[in-house]
């Protein structure tokens, strides 16, 4: 792999010299048009104004001190004030922007300076407007949850297993860079130990689900595998599943959750057969298989010495999967009501390509390109992709929302 990377670098630099375009040799810049400014739709701004009014009335009520303390209301209040805060910032920035633009059009003497100023404040404005947009849209129901990442190799045999391992390392590094608490729930290596058969990573940071939920889908890799002897580039895939963590995977939680099922809904198998069992044998095998009949979910767990812990973990995963399934169904229903006017992001299965020879990562949903493979795989620049996806998602949802509002009015 090292050799291939060296080669591509060499080839790249040679080509660059030939074309006398050294800038394209090592591009660390992103190519997505994230600095284009879209002014927010008036309907959305109206919504923000409504929030501001609501906040004002709520503040007045609170100032009178007649209401008792209520956690839900406090939460609502803090969300409102955050929205209104960014709304005010947005309106002040947009008005300066408009003034400057007017200046450019009207006053030729100040044109250059004004243009310079516009260039200066534009990135800031883009940021505020996207932040406001994200806040105005209804949050995902599991936005404040920690998350569970499941990674499995797809097509591509051993190379896919190696890539799955690489992805796992990437997410672990990402969590480490962010200083999030994380741990491996399950990690099954393949026989030679070079890749994984499956792995489940738990990221215990509240809100991690909201950030990482766009990672779900099939990740494609194009590179010359370490197992390849003739230097051909292969394409393999790995699947990432992102689940919201519904509760801490403590044993008490698992016990009470286990009892919430009817006995004929679930089946717990311990992987043992033959012989009389009991005192006759002392086995160390503690693998547990959990089957949930109504949904057809099967979960295997075997990493812990304690059967009890394996079971608790299996139940935590089951809970997360069921919650996600339910949410997906809800979304599907809502979409059916709208008769599928919009393409959505979660239906496309191939979400991202990691092209090692070109040192490029492409997200197929938002068309975002990043030319820094090492930074991505080390988890340092994953944030760029996540951010691009988040902007894309809020844009899409804003469009949906506007359509809905327009069709109603």
């Amino acid at each position, binding site marked *: 792999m090292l050799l291939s990377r060296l080669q591509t670098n060499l080839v790249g630099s040679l080509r660059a010299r030939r074309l006398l375009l050294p800038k394209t040799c090592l591009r660390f810049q992103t190519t997505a048009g994230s600095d284009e400014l879209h002014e927010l739709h008036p309907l959305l701004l109206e919504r923000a104004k409504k929030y501001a009014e609501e906040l004002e009335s709520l503040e007045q009520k609170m100032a009178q001190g007649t209401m008792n303390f209520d956690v839900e209301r406090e939460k609502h209040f803090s969300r409102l004030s955050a929205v209104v805060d960014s709304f005010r910032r947005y309106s002040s920035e947009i008005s300066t922007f408009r003034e400057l633009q007017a200046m450019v059009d009207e006053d030729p003497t100040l044109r250059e300076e004004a243009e310079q100023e516009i260039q200066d404040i534009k990135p800031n404005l883009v940021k505020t407007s996207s932040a406001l947009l994200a806040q105005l849209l209804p949050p995902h129901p599991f936005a404040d949850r920690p998350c569970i990442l499941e990674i499995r190799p797809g097509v591509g045999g051993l190379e896919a297993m190696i890539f799955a391992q690489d992805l796992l390392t990437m997410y672990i590094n990402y969590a480490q860079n962010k200083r999030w608490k994380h741990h491996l729930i399950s990690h099954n*290596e393949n*026989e*030679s*130990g070079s890749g994984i058969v499956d792995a489940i990573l738990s990221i215990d940071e509240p809100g991690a689900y909201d950030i990482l939920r766009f990672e779900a889908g099939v990740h494609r890799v194009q590179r010359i595998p370490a197992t390849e002897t003739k230097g051909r580039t292969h394409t393999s895939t790995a699947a990432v599943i992102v689940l919201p963590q519904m509760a801490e995977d403590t*044993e008490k939680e698992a*016990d009470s959750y286990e*009892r919430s099922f009817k*006995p004929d809904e679930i089946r*717990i*198998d*311990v992987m*043992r*057969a033959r*012989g*009389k*069992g*009991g*005192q*006759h*044998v*002392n*086995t*160390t*095998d*503690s693998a547990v298989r959990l089957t949930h009949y109504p949904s057809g979910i099967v979960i295997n767990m*075997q*990493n*812990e*010495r*304690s*059967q*009890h*812990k394996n079971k608790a973990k299996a139940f935590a995963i089951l809970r997360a999967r069921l919650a996600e399934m339910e949410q997906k169904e809800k979304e599907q229903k809502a979409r059916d009501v709208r008769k599928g006017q919009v393409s959505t992001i979660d239906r496309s299965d191939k979400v991202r390509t990691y092209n090692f020879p070109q040192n490029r990562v492409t997200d197929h949903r938002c068309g975002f390109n990043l030319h820094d493979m090492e930074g991505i795989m080390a988890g340092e620049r994953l944030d760029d992709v996540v951010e691009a996806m988040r902007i894309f998602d809020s844009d899409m949802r804003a469009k949906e929302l506007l359509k809905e509002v327009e069709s109603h009015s």
Partner: protein
Amino acid sequence: MPRIKPSTIWKAFSLNKALPFLLPECRSISAAKQELHWIENECTSHRQVVQCCKLRYRHYPLQYILRSQPFGPLSVKCERGVLIPRWETEEWTMDLAQRLPASQKLQILDLCTGTGCVALLLKHLRPKSTVHAIDCSPLAFKLVSLNASSLNIDIQPVKLDILDAHAPNELPNFDIITCNPPYIPKSTFVKETSRSVKLFEPKLALIGETEFYSNLLDFWLQKTDAFVYEVGELSQCTYIHHRIAQNAQLSDLWRVGFKFDSNRQARVVFGYKRAHTTLNWEKVFEGFGELKH
């Protein structure tokens, strides 16, 4: 049991030099790797790991090597000379503990306690109850006390031979008696137990036929409202069932049931008094196993 292929041994060797030592007990590379991982977690040096694997090659139980065995949410210490807690015992103990009412101060007695696993788990999950743990082996008695203090669970260990006819007289009455007695008949011991059990686990805790079940019927039934006894085979369940059914006095008073483990083997025989008890045992044992009498 099929032999291990030399190719498998070579493959294991190429992955890790200590891995082939684990193959005789684990049988497959994936299981051996899992076990090696557990051993590596507990050991500090590579040499220690290899030594542990070599012990394992001689069928020495992993639980004695690592000196512990998870039992429900607890990690129970294990030592040579005391029976290693089994997953079947864990299964029925967890089930039983969750059925007992948490609010009541129950008097629980655990016989043939060994490491004290059943007693410790019951007390851990139902802290309001009082739990006595009896074993005749001095090694077991020491280990129970050690486990109780290290897990910080307050149980009362007693060193007593329960087959001694006078033993029950000194004790008060109990709400429920649990027991995991030795239940492997001497005649089938060599044939039916695995090598690791045969070579390294105490025969005192393994070999027994029906003496503990008849002891239950003769002495302990008068002192308790309910009992839960582990068994090795169905004949031991039916032994208790028949003896209670045939005795006119007991037959009116007691209900008996069998419980099968998730490996579909007869694992537990339990019984409770129909009336005049502090607890509604019928409700507690509802769905625990099949009622036979």
